[in-house]
């Protein structure tokens, strides 16, 4: 059966950003339904029943997260949409925000109603200047239509959304780093507990949800949890945006049900490996997850299936590496990213990330030593789960898995002081 796009149903339409286009496709009817028929608790229950799991990468059940918000604390409750989208390989939320901002805004308003939040934030990475402006414009349109402001649609519920731009820091995608950053400080992650749902922004109960997660909410309300649960695998259901980048013919964002085969993503949607080359490796969920070899890609892309295969769905950011790429070079690139982005708070990560970068770089440059590979694995162990936030694990995972799965290339590099494979410089020239 052909899959009917849900999250991207409007993105190819003309004026997809306008509220008129969105309303013509049934937009804001979920909001009307909520105010007419549902209590906040019923919205939480519906989302819980749908088994919607967070699309930012962790896959935590959204409705369960919402239910952690304590009642009657006397403090305001905040919802923050995490639009920091910085995991290398990930560019799905940008598509939603730039092409269908009202779907995102409607999801934000309904979710805010569910958790009793009157002021919410969209924390968007600073580089997404245009997308921030598009969201501001959408919020203004929604306000003019009475979907935001005081006493929305006569419900008695008040709500306002602030679009808050970050300023260039990968770590601010981590929810407590994000909260610190929203408070105007450096984005240093906090020790948990307390979890943000109890003590988050300005010490108040705070829920942080990914853009794509919240974009699912209006559809769950309109069509019901049962409908949602029947899309893809039961334990990890719903529509999913898959990002495909790197060495494929047609990179892009593709929407399918959860559990879409990775092979189909690469060879059907992506048109296969570019320039007639062969596949060497795939990073299925953003640069922080374990790399897969070409033999390991016969898997379905949902949280549980990818985990069973020893990697992670993460943000479903699939990066494809062809057989002309040197894995030492590729890892050198990634270790540089983590060395640059480590926030510097915890010693193992602050010191370990640049150390790993220097070792991989010296192997790449032909100055590697025989015990460098074991040292890389040792440093990984010394970082793993010894930091406040998951960044440490994110930094060591590519190192460990690249070395384990492509050890021959690293050893060749150390012994022969050059790449086992070498690719031409790749700048595409227009024919």
């Amino acid at each position, binding site marked *: 059966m052909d899959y009917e796009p849900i999250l991207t149903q409007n993105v190819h339409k003309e004026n997809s950003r306008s509220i008129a286009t969105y309303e013509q496709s049934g937009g804001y009817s979920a909001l009307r339904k909520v105010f007419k028929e549902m209590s906040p608790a019923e919205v939480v229950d519906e989302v819980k029943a749908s088994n919607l799991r967070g699309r930012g990468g962790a896959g935590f059940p959204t409705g369960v997260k919402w239910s952690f918000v304590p009642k009657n604390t006397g403090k305001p409750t905040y919802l923050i949409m995490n639009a920091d989208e910085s995991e290398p390989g990930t560019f799905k939320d940008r598509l939603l925000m730039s092409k269908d901002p009202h779907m995102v805004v409607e999801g934000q308003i309904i979710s805010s109603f569910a958790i009793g939040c009157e002021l919410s934030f969209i924390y968007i990475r600073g580089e997404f200047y245009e997308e921030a402006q598009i969201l501001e414009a959408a919020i203004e349109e929604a306000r003019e239509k009475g979907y935001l402001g005081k006493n929305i649609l006569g419900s008695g519920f008040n709500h306002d959304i602030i679009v808050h731009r970050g*300023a260039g820091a990968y770590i601010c995608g981590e929810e407590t780093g994000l909260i610190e950053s929203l408070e105007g400080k450096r984005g240093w992650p906090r020790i948990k507990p307390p979890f943000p749902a109890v003590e988050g922004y300005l010490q108040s109960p705070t829920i942080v949800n990914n853009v794509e997660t919240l974009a699912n909410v209006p559809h769950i309300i309109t069509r019901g949890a049962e409908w949602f649960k029947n899309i893809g695998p039961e334990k990890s259901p719903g529509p999913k945006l898959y*990002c495909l980048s790197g060495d494929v013919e047609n990179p892009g964002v593709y929407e399918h049900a959860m559990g879409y085969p990775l092979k189909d993503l690469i060879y059907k949607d992506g048109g296969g490996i570019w320039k007639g080359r062969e596949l060497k490796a795939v990073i299925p969920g953003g640069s922080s997850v374990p790399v897969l070899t070409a033999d390991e890609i016969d898997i379905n892309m949902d949280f549980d299936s990818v985990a069973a295969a020893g990697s992670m769905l993460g943000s479903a950011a699939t990066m494809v590496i062809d057989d002309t790429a040197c894995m030492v070079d590729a890892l050198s690139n990634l270790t540089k990213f983590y060395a640059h982005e480590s926030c510097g708070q915890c010693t193992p990560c602050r010191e370990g990330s640049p150390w790993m970068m220097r070792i991989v770089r010296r192997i790449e440059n032909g100055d590697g030593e025989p015990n460098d590979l074991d040292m890389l694995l040792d440093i990984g162990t010394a970082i793993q789960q010894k930091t406040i936030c998951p960044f440490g694990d994110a930094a060591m995972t590519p190192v460990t898995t690249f070395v384990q799965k492509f050890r021959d290339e690293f050893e060749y590099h150390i012994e022969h002081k050059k790449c086992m494979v070498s690719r031409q410089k790749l700048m595409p020239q*227009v024919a």
Partner: protein
Amino acid sequence: MSLEFSPENQEKIQTLLDRYPDKRSTTLPVLHIAQAQFGTLTPEVINLVADAIDQESMHVRDTISFYTMFHTKERGKYHLQVCHTLSCSLRGSEQVVDHLYERLNFDENGMTADKQFSIEKVECLGACGTAPVVQINNDYYENLTIERLDEIIDKLQAS
């Protein structure tokens, strides 16, 4: 000479202070406003920001030091931020950088003599599906080829 926010920016800042639940949370948005108006976050600009949002300038300075998008040193009129993380790298970001270096004479600080252009290699810009990508000031330029890159630079040089 004392610096001042433009009347329009003063109004924007007041709106932020009214909308946010606390003043310190306006640090990032007010820094964005300040950088857009003054170009560089000099010590004088930092003090101005601190006064405007009623925070210690040490706090503002500390925050600035954490984020790559806030600049305390002068940049070119057009700041070229070339993404060079994996997906962009696989699709030719190194050639983008090489070409820009060949075409524009950057000094050791990555600035051209006429201060029209400055260059910086940046980490993932979140546009991997349209790699390679360069962000010039606020705008993204995607699916770059050498030809397209030349067109972009020609256009900026002519403006």
